């Protein structure tokens, strides 16, 4: 039961990253792919109508985390205090910039909110990347299961670590690259005209860049947490994840090469999910690793809610999930189709 909940919670967070990742990516590419005001509106319209639905995955993840792993929520959220508030503020600014940017058709107004949009997305990609790096590397947990971390200490990934060190910064850079590639792939599918053509080119270059950076952080992970690879090899889920990665990478390359945009975009989603699934399966059952003394690490068992709470949640969660899927089918049909510059067919964005 606890392993199943670990999988559900991980998949909810992964769903969020895959869904909102394309928005981060679109935001990061904003300046280079959209040259005119109309093109910038077009990019916002391509991601706009669904941003709050994507963010609900993060909120729902947080809620489920309290329900099934309350002690992890308590330890991790207090420990990541500063990073989490930066993420929250960026999410606020990002949402507002999407929402109000289109309200006034004015050069200064839109220029300002476009700038806010880009900065917030960049910081979000970096912060989520660093957070992923922190999950892999571990945090300075003490025997009470508590930790607190400044932004940085001595930039080494051992002992009293900070949020940022050479390893987590590398993962953050990787996150920026792969999310940008993901965003470019999405916009290629979702737009037409000059924006589409630019995105198609950027998507190829960026995905080509993903491969070497992935190799680098894999080697770095081997250095920082060598035992993870032993765990991964003995975990069938990791092999499944690897299969997904290989399959989707192949589909991605062929999709990009032959201009099959939907295939490329789906592959991009699965590739991102495959990487995250492999990673989260490799660290299981540890949810938060202690860089001070590994025996103080928090495992899924030690942070789980009492059995009855888990049991009750496993009754209503599937119902909620089925409903959420139903709504998703409804809204994605509504927003199907490309967004063009001169046909404001979706919204006031």
């Amino acid at each position, binding site marked *: 039961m606890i392993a199943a909940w670990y999988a559900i919670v991980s998949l909810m967070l992964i769903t969020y990253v895959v869904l909102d990742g394309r928005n981060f990516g679109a935001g990061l590419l904003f300046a280079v792919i959209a040259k005119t005001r109309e093109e910038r509106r077009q990019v916002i319209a391509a991601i706009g109508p669904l941003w709050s639905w994507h*963010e609900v995955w993060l*909120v729902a993840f*947080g809620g489920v985390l309290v329900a099934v792993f309350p002690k992890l929520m308590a330890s991790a959220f207090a420990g990541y205090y500063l990073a*989490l*508030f930066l993420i929250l503020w960026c999410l606020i600014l990002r949402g507002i910039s999407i*929402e109000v940017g289109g309200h006034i058709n004015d050069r200064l107004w839109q220029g300002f909110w476009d700038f806010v949009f880009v900065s917030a997305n960049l910081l979000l990609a970096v912060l989520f990347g660093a957070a992923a790096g922190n999950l892999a590397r571990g945090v300075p947990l003490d025997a009470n299961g508590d930790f607190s971390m400044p932004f940085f200490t001595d930039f080494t990934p051992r002992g009293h670590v900070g949020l940022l060190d050479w390893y987590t910064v590398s993962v953050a850079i990787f996150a920026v690259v792969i999310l940008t590639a993901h965003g470019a792939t999405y916009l290629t599918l979702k737009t037409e005209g000059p924006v589409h053509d630019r995105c198609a080119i950027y998507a190829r270059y960026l995905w080509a860049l993903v491969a070497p950076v992935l190799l680098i952080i894999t080697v770095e992970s081997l250095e920082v947490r060598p035992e993870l690879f032993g765990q991964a090899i003995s975990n069938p889920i990791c092999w499944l994840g690897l299969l997904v990665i290989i399959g989707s990478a192949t589909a991605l390359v062929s999709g990009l090469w032959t201009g099959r945009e939907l295939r490329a975009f789906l592959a991009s989603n699965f590739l991102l999910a495959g990487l995250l699934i492999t990673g989260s399966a490799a660290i299981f059952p540890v949810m938060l690793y202690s860089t001070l003394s590994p025996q103080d690490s928090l495992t899924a068992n030690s942070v789980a809610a009492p059995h009855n709470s888990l049991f009750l949640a496993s009754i209503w969660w599937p119902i909620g999930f089925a409903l959420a899927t139903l709504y998703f089918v409804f809204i994605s049909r509504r927003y199907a189709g490309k967004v063009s510059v001169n*046909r404001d067919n979706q919204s006031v964005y």
Partner: protein
Amino acid sequence: MNSNLSDPAFWSRFQFGFTLTYHYLFPQLTMGLAWFLVYWKWRALRTGDEKYNHAVRFWAKIFGLNFAVGVVTGIPMEFQFGTNWAGFTRYAGGVIGQTLAMEGMFAFFLESAFIGALIWGEKRLGPRYHFLAAVGVALGSWLSGYFILVTNAFMQHPVGYKVGADGLLGISSLSAYLLNPWAWVEFAHNQMAALVTGSFVVAAVGAFYSLREQHPKQSQLYLRAGVSAGLIASLLVAFPTGDQQAKMVGRHQPVTLAAMEGRFQGGSMAGVAIIGQPNVAAQRLDNPIEVPGALSFLAYGTFQSYVHGLDEYPANAWPDNIELLYYSFHLMITLGTIFILLMAFATFQNWRGRLQSSTWLLWVLMLAFPFPYIANTVGWMTAELGRQPWLAYGLFHTRDGYSKVVSNGNTIFTLIGFIGLYFVLGLLFLFLVGREIAHGPDEEAAVEGRARVVTARGKEQVA
């Protein structure tokens, strides 16, 4: 509240209270306004009168802005359970996590899926589905309110839990927890209060247009709907919901009731103070003017009923800010009474057909809309200050709930950040809503007409 400024619990309370108070300015209008949209959309379907669709289109724009700020300021609330209240999350997460998660799974997915459809989907969806989108958003927002109020009701009156071997809480009965009697009463009271806010805002915009002699058909529609719904909601918020809420407090939190009324000594024939300032050091109400027996009657049903005084409880069981609690409660009661009188008079004038011509009444209605926000806020302050010194009543002290590992330096840093960010957000919101109100409802050009203008302009610029 602890006056010791080096106390970490103080700063975490301050931040949570500030961000929550600010956040709740938005959902209360969302929850109130949602049913106006449903009602007008339904009228449009039934009568085919285009004025209802104009009203929906206009209010949906304000609703959308309000909703967006509500969403972005809501996410920090959930996160702060972990960041600032780790002690409480560790202790009670096995119980309150259920509703926090349900809110995401059942309410937010519903709301966020249909909000876009409600605001921009009219053409694509057609009138029936557009009506359903309005219903979906309204239900989602009320469902979200219910789950949060169950969470709060657990903190006020814990039920359905069991204490594990490690001293932490788990859930024993989900139905008992979800159907907490406190939650039902609080939900009814709170939702009626949200409807009061919605009604006052709708009426205020109607009065504004009426006084400026703009949009006569629309202003009449807003005034009638706002004033009628406002009277019903103002009455229901006081009786039976507010009355039941007070009785609930009297039954389960007698020391809170004593503090709310500034009753330092117990006794029968307890009065409700109209005027009087609590003097906690001297343990008395200064210069009191009371309605004798009113509190006894309201809380326990007869004038002779005995109402406990603070002197019957040790001082460490008292709510830790009696003065603020007292004023919050009295301000809420006073405003609630004024709302009933104002809306009753406005409904009477409306019935006589004199509302549109009664300039001074329109002025009052136009300027009255901030007061329901104040009443909602002080109502919540009454609930939450009254719960002190407990985080979960009778189970867990507030001083044990905050995150021990978070330094004051970090909390004060994020508090400053929130104050700055929310100030800017508030200015932005007022500016944009003001702009929509100044622009007014489109009565001549329907959405199609507007869309054509946008398209034409776009093409021109591309060419």
